[in-house]
């Protein structure tokens, strides 16, 4: 939901970022084949067609995460969001998508707006998602059945909510890393990067 106001408030920024994550995660799940393609439906967002899952369980899960994330974004306590793709059989981490979130803490609760147009932000988000799609050029094929995990890095004193638990970083040993684009709403800045397991190619 794009804000109709001219400036960006903290709340508005949190919403934008959460929205991005919602679509972004869905795209990655679709791209990498974590879920079968037929479980996705096409929607239009950011002036391009993206895929959203129709699987009810997945949908609920993702919605919960995104809501939680929105709250944390508003509080400026979240630092990173990581999507980890692990092979089902071997429990090995094959891919790791990391989104770093920088929050401008000088902005307080509801006061203050920043000047940036929604369009510009959406443009940036679009390029990020396009780039995610283009990573197929070098990402190895995920041939095995995979599962995914969502990790969120928050401030130390953050209370762990009910449905969440503490976890390790799930890094990939001997990985190739590629930095992707960033976008910023002037309040939140999101930069992305993907790490994948280095393998011998045929």
């Amino acid at each position, binding site marked *: 939901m794009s804000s109709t106001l001219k400036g960006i408030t903290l709340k508005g920024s949190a919403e934008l970022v959460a929205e991005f994550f919602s679509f972004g995660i869905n795209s990655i799940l679709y791209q990498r084949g974590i879920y079968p393609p037929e479980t996705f439906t096409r929607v239009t967002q950011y002036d391009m067609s993206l895929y959203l899952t129709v699987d009810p369980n997945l949908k609920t899960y993702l919605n919960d995460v995104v809501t939680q994330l929105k709250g944390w974004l508003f509080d400026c306590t979240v630092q990173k969001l990581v999507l980890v793709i692990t092979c089902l059989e071997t429990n090995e981490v094959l891919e790791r998508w990391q989104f770093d979130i920088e929050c401008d803490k000088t902005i307080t609760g509801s006061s203050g707006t920043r000047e940036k147009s929604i369009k510009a932000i959406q443009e940036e988000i679009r390029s990020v998602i396009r780039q995610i799609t283009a990573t197929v050029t*070098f990402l190895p094929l995920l041939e095995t059945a995979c599962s995914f995990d969502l990790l969120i890095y928050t401030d130390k004193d953050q209370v762990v909510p009910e449905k969440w638990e503490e976890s390790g970083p799930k890094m990939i040993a001997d990985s190739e890393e590629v*930095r992707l684009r960033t976008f910023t709403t002037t309040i939140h800045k999101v930069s992305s990067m993907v790490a994948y397991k280095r393998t*011998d190619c045929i």
Partner: protein
Amino acid sequence: MAEGEAEWELCKENIQPLRRGRAISALHQALSQQDGAGYAAIQQQKQAFESELRLYSGDDPLDVWDRYIKWTQQTYPQGGKESNLSVLLERAVKRFVDETQYHNDSRYVNLWIKFAESSTEPLDMYNYMHGQGIGVQQAALYIAWSEELETHGDSKKADSVYQEGFKCGAEPADKLHQYHKAFQARVSRQVMKDMLDGGEQEPDSPEPAQPQRSSLVDLKPRGKKTAIAPIVRTGAAVSHRSRGLNLQLPTAPHNGHNSRFLVFDEKQASAAAAAEPSEPRPERWMAPPSSRAKENEMMPEKWTDVKMPQKSRAGHSVVAPPSKPNFQPYVEECDQPPVVTPHKINPTVNTVLSVRKPSKEETPLERLQEPQQAEGDKKEQSMYCKELLFSGVTEFCFEELRAERYYKRAAQELEEKEKKLKEVKEDLKRQIEEKRNVLQDRCPQAGAGQQGRLEAGESSQPVDCLPGCAVSRRQGSDPGFKIYEECEASSSARVNQPVENEDPRLADKGSALVLPFTIFDESTTGEKTQEVTSKAVGCRPSVCRPLTAVLKPLAEAPATRLESDGLEGIESLTDDAIVSSYKNKTLCPSPDDTCDFARAAHLASTPFGGSGSGLGASASSADGLPDLSTFSVDPVVSAPTPAVQQADYEVVLRGERLSPIEEASLEDGHYSVSSAFSGSSLGGMSGMKAMHSSSGMEACPPQFPSIPEETAQNVEKDNPCSMSSRRRVLSKVDLDSFPNFYRNVRSLPEVMEDDALFIGEESIMILSQIVSGENGVVHFGQTKSRESVVVKVDFETVPWDFYVAAQLRSRLGPKSQKYFGYRSSCFFYMDGCITLSWGRCLSPLQDFLERSPFLQVAVSLTKQLLEMMEQMHSCRLVHGNIRPDTVLLRCRESGGDADSVLQMLDFSSCVDLDQQPEVMSAGDLPSAQAFIRQGLLSTSSSPYQVDLIGIAETVYMLVKKQTMNVVREDSEWKPTDDFTGTLHGHVWQEFFQKILNPGNQSTVSILSDLQHLVERIFLCGTENNLMITEYF
């Protein structure tokens, strides 16, 4: 990776995705080099691989191919012709097709699979592989095969392939299971969907509800005459070439989703589709392996003899190629009937097929299977290394092969050379270490000046050895020459070696002596010196005799013998010798040389004016260079050589001095004049830089140890503080035997403030100047090890301070440490000496006085001063000049009472009554003259009393901060100021009364009495010691 640098994103269309992904670094490198900059590097790398292919001599040639292909894949992301990937693959595959060891090597199998994927008919490949037994143990084969089948829609067959794989026990089994499960899931999903979507539709023959628009398919042109591309791009308008069909297949499952893009289905799209029937005809390919023997052909032969199988419209297959009936030949695709699996297009419509012309190209598989017809004939046999040339992808030429071999050999040789050099280096290092150790052992106490560079021979000579012996040790038939050579050698080895200095100097003398010999021979004088020297020509030791005379004092036994010679030498300074020798001398060998000319001018003119007057001690002098002193012995001046010139001049001057006019008057006081000579010669030479020569003169008096005694009586009382008398004293003492006494042949180094001074083994940072005078400069310094030193630079070669300090220490014993420091060393140069005294000093007392110390402090200082002088007097040393600026304040280093805060700075007025018995009364001391004039002292008072007065003045200054004026009252001397008003005034009165009127008491007792007196003030004082400690 900033946003602008995502080249991979910009070129994403050009990058073929790899199954296993790409390394992003290689990708970047490849992409960034597309403008040709890195082209050379790539070519180089390629060349390296190619040569490796040819020159590989190991066990695993597949490895080279494997790496090469992988590198190619990464380096050429877009694939394409320039990568030669397909050629590479084909070659690699063909190369090892017969080597059963690789049949189940995963690398090889992967190569095959890659090869198959990039070919037009992968299924055929897989079949062939299966038939050949290549990769039957590898799960990868089955997986790839069934994936291919799955893309073709033949799930049944795909499943059977998996089963086959399980049956054969393909490895890794769990991977096979995994994929099988996934496959099954996919299939079941599909079936479910189909069932859900439309039951009436047969799952196998989906007719799309609407004709799907196929993307990227060829269009069949409409029209008979002119080909017009159809507008409608569905249905019959689409010409179904191989690819088109393939693209159709995936759409089958997605009936209801028209909007689905096909682009995402890259998995299937990447495999080049084959429209040919993939009928399982396993039996066809099960040719016995033995029949493959003939396939082992690496050389690319012309395939001109290969016959194309006949095509028939009927579509019946099997036209056996003429040569090999053992297996079913490959059949052209266009001959095949439509596949079993359903296609969208009605297979009976063959119009499409008819358009296709029989292709003349051969698929790689065909090539593989076709027999090598030339094989059988063996008519041709290549006599050159055809295999090597062609074994890679690109053709090599002979030169390239040769170059590779050459480079290899060169690299090998370089390696060997390096190894050898390293060994040699190690060897040399070891030798140096050994030699060093040997040297260290040999000269453990060689003193600070020893350097490891010494030749072992030199260093082994003890200090006291006769120079004669030293010379004699050097073999050589020709003494003159040998000595000269030795001189060179030793002088080259000579670096700050005070101990060794004798030897080089000896050698120097030796060399210098070479030439004079000739002249002596000529002269007809009967001087003993000549005899001596002429004797010297023939006999080596005698050459050295005069030399030793210079260096060794009376105490040395051998020296005595030589002294006599020296005496003779002196006596030889007669008129005749000089006058006669004059004739033969060239006064000015090179008139252009100004120095020469100046010298000659001196010689030519009448005796130099500056010679006659006896000079005082203000002479700069160098160390007694024995060689020059020897020349002072020789009245005859030889033909000047560079080494000898100054000596010549020296001699000449001497001769000058001893000109007939003056000679007589000087004769009596010969030796005293000789001491005056030092001054005179110096005076005469002041314009010259002949320091050496002057030192030669200086050395003269000390030569004759027995003489000074006489001269002391002969000559009128000499200033005991003069340099000459001191030198006399010093000559009696073997300076070299004092510890920390170092002789150098160099001239005095420059000592500047805030500069570093490298002296001996010390490097000292010169901090500030304390005092500077015409005779010397005193600095504070700090050594490398953070010890504070007082650096006294004397411009005269009389290390008097060092001597006095050493005497104090030796006479007082450990007591001396309190006031006279614990360590000092002296560096003796040709034109001066530098004395270092350890001990942290703050400032002269003078400076301290300006800070108006407390009374208690003054009292403490007084006491210390008294004690210090008592010590000095007790060992018969008169200081002679106690004033606030000759006493230094020191930092308490240990903090205990044992340390004092005073240190003597300057002993320059000091007189050693032990060694200078001629000083018998105060009248002899130059510093006492002022007191004598004042009346404080009489000429006959004890010399010690000078010190008492000095102390009195200093103490007065401390207490009253003004100079003392004395007045005589009641036959007693008193300071004008009465001390009546001051604290402890009566004590001071008594103090001064005692000190100014010593009478005939021994100063030592007076001083101790005074100390007790002063202590009383201490005891009266409340804080006494504590305060003093803190103050400092």
